[in-house]
């Protein structure tokens, strides 16, 4: 089953790195990129995304704020906040909106595990 994923990061290099890993692990998934939170929200209003990977430390609106808004818009979307800021308060705020926290730089193992879990969750949502 192929899903649609939104990748949000203000760094082009970070988006390229994410694209490489996603292409290797899930070549059939449709990937859409945004460099800012407002752009990501606009995209999510226009079309449905199954999964979103969101950088935490971004200008204007940070990633935790954005996942909160994405969660409000779409209760079933599988969300992850990506950051090297591993302060427990940050991780807890991510968990509070049911977003997985992925440590940056994201290892292949962590990404594989996240995507496997995301697929399992999306399948479970569908069969309900």
């Amino acid at each position, binding site marked *: 089953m192929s899903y649609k994923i939104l990748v949000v990061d*203000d*760094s*082009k*290099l*970070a988006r*390229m*790195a994410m*694209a*490489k890993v996603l*292409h*290797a692990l899930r070549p059939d998934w449709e990937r859409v990129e945004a460099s800012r939170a407002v752009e990501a929200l606009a995209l999510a209003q226009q079309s449905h995304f199954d999964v979103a990977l969101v950088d*935490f*430390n*971004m*200008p204007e609106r940070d990633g935790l704020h954005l996942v909160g808004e994405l969660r409000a818009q779409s209760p079933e979307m599988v969300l992850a906040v990506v*950051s*090297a*800021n*591993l*302060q*427990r*308060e*940050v991780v807890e705020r991510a968990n509070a909106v049911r977003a997985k926290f992925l440590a*940056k*730089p994201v290892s292949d193992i962590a990404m594989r595990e996240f995507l496997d879990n995301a697929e399992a969750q999306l399948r479970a949502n569908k069969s309900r």
Partner: protein
Amino acid sequence: MTQASLDELELDALTELVNIGVSVAATGLREMVGEEVLLSVPKVDLVSRENAVAILREKESAKLVAVHQVFEGDITGRALLIFPETKSLEIVRAVAGSNLSLEDVIELEQEALAETGNIILNGCLSTIANMLERNLKMSLPEIIRGEAVHFFNLQPPPQSGDQVLFVYINFAVQQRDIRGYIAMLMDLPSFEALKVLLDEFIARASGKN
């Protein structure tokens, strides 16, 4: 004279590395203060040594305090964490506790600044070095006080063509806002080595070899 510069993607990659570095540093600082450290998105500029002095002069009219560390490896240079001196005691209160008496704060100042600087500079530089797959050796932190021009003219004397990677950061601990600057001063050969390492990092990260 060689004009040192980075292209758009190299600067983006460097900014991302710095962002990851200061995020790691904030996580380390949080462990020290026992409370969340709020961090702005760092803004990164590459400037000449003269410009770095001019920028600091324009932004900060008061005296400055800096934590200084020398780094050595494929890239060699100096790292400075610079604050307005008026913020120095604020930093000590933020990291060592707000209930301290003024006497204690003054007594602890050197040590607390050195420790804070060490966490931030080491967190930042060692993360960047790791991601560039290189080793950096860092000297012990040293506190220096004075004006910007002193910080960028430490012995041994600087070379013409020196580059400064200038990072603006704001962080807040216990409702205390602290603005500061991280400056990485390096000579032209080190800057060129950094550029090569950045290109290799970009190729690895994006898979476009």
